[in-house]
């Protein structure tokens, strides 16, 4: 394939990556922003989302579309409930102390991983995509009569991948509307800014934390459900999304949702593009280098809060 169409293909792969990473990293960022908790188990919520998506679709069987729709709604809800429960039983008990929550979430990571290994097993399992039409894409060339469109062999994308690419903006807009236009969003923002004063104005901060931890995990699970028809579900699949989400949250600036989205698109795109042209390993090396450079130039991240 020529360079142009090849790049276009890589960009589309990058967009798929960016979409999934945006959702996943947003969950981590939300939890850190509101609760000041560094959730090391975030990748496991991603993994649980994928595994539960497999469980739901294989349980329902039948039409791939309906089963997948059930997974798309059910898996994030279930993972969110598991996370809220973990918050209530574990994080609340250690009073959200920054250091102890890191240790506690490392513990959660292994618990979720081992429970999944014991129940789901060590094999990777596929989830059929609900639709998967291959769409050929046009490219252009300069001819004598100006621009001419043609259909290069191999330049195509599946309808499912387009769906994944579209999912992130839709969820982002929905989340943004909730945060800025609803009472729940107001409560979340007030708690993030000053939890003590929030309490003094009748905001049940512990309940808010459980909810936020649940929403954060549900976002990771949603990203996983979207990706599982492309990559399979496996009990160790949480490591990469955890690493990439941390990279994104650090580059974007701790606690900044805007920065998280921007960094997720940047890292997701470059991860996808470098993976297509070179190797996934090189993509991770690049992402880690970007983190190092951003931290040298701007210790607070691109959109870091400048609070003490």
């Amino acid at each position, binding site marked *: 394939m020529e360079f142009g169409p090849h790049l276009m293909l890589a960009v589309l792969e990058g967009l798929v990556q960016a979409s999934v990473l945006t959702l996943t990293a947003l969950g981590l960022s939300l939890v850190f922003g509101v609760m000041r908790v560094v959730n090391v188990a975030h990748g496991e919520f991603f993994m649980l989302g994928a595994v539960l998506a497999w469980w739901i679709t294989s349980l329902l069987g039948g039409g791939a579309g309906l089963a997948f729709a059930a997974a798309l709604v059910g898996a994030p809800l279930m993972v969110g409930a598991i996370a809220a429960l973990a918050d209530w039983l574990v994080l609340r008990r250690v009073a959200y102390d920054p250091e102890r929550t890191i240790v506690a979430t490392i513990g959660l990571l292994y618990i979720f991983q081992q429970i999944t290994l014991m129940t789901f097993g060590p094999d990777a399992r596929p989830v059929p995509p609900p639709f998967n039409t291959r769409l050929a894409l046009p490219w252009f060339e300069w001819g004598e009569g100006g621009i001419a469109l043609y259909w290069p062999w191999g330049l195509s994308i599946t309808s499912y991948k387009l769906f994944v690419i579209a999912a992130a903006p839709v969820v982002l807009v929905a989340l943004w509307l909730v945060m800025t236009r609803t*009472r729940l969003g*107001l*409560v979340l*923002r*007030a708690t993030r*800014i*000053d939890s*003590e*004063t*929030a*309490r*003094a*104005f*009748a*905001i*049940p*901060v*512990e309940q808010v934390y459980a909810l936020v931890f649940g929403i954060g995990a549900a976002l990771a699970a949603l990203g996983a459900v979207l990706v599982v028809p492309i990559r399979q579900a496996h009990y160790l699949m949480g490591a990469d999304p955890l690493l990439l989400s941390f990279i994104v949250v650090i580059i974007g600036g701790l606690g900044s949702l805007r920065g998280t989205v921007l960094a997720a698109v940047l890292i997701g795109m470059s991860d996808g593009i470098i993976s297509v042209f070179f190797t996934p390993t090189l993509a991770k090396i690049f992402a880690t280098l970007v983190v190092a450079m951003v931290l040298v130039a701007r210790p607070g991240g691109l959109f870091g809060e400048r609070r003490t």
Partner: protein
Amino acid sequence: MLKVEAIDAAYGRVQVLRGLSITARAGEILCLLGRNGAGKTTLLKAIMGLVPVTGGGITLDGTEITALPAHRIPRLGIGYIPQGRRLFGELTVAENIEIGLMAGRQDRETRARVLALFPRLGERLGQRADTLSGGEQQMLATARALCLGPKLLLLDEPTEGLQPSMIALIREVVREMRARGVAVVLVEQRVDAVLEVADRVVFIENGRTALDTAPEELRTNPALLHRHVGV
């Protein structure tokens, strides 16, 4: 209205309040005076459930509130104006007010009534709270607490760093609340800021009640004042 009886409170192992008692009555302004570090702020936080109380008890209209979760306490009708204002700085004026209304389950009518007290806030509803001037921020902190429709109002050094016109406005609002039958607990550091409005004055020293008296007493007996304010 509010009875604080012999409470102890501590931050970790550092005990700050030692058997402190105060009583606030409806339609009365109780002023708390005391040096920096005496425990005035800690007392108000203990009432709000933000600092654990390890001994003694707090009742509001006879209801024990000592062990209630912090978020249930404002619902009982306690409006808190913290030291340093503690506004939600990234939120707008309107949103800060909304949080006060939500805390007391109050409606538009309360909002209109409170904004009538502070017309300047009404002109800045869409502005971020941290872009307001110091005086406007204090107005907003006061408005936020009043929006809850409190029967007890706790003010922690509301005049700190304000210019005289603003101090006068805050004092006016406090008097207005008293006239409406609200119980007011006003913490101040400067005695002269207090004598004009107070119905009763309590000195706090080292986490204890050192003196509970009427302002006239202090005016006529400067020696008393001198002993507790010292220099």
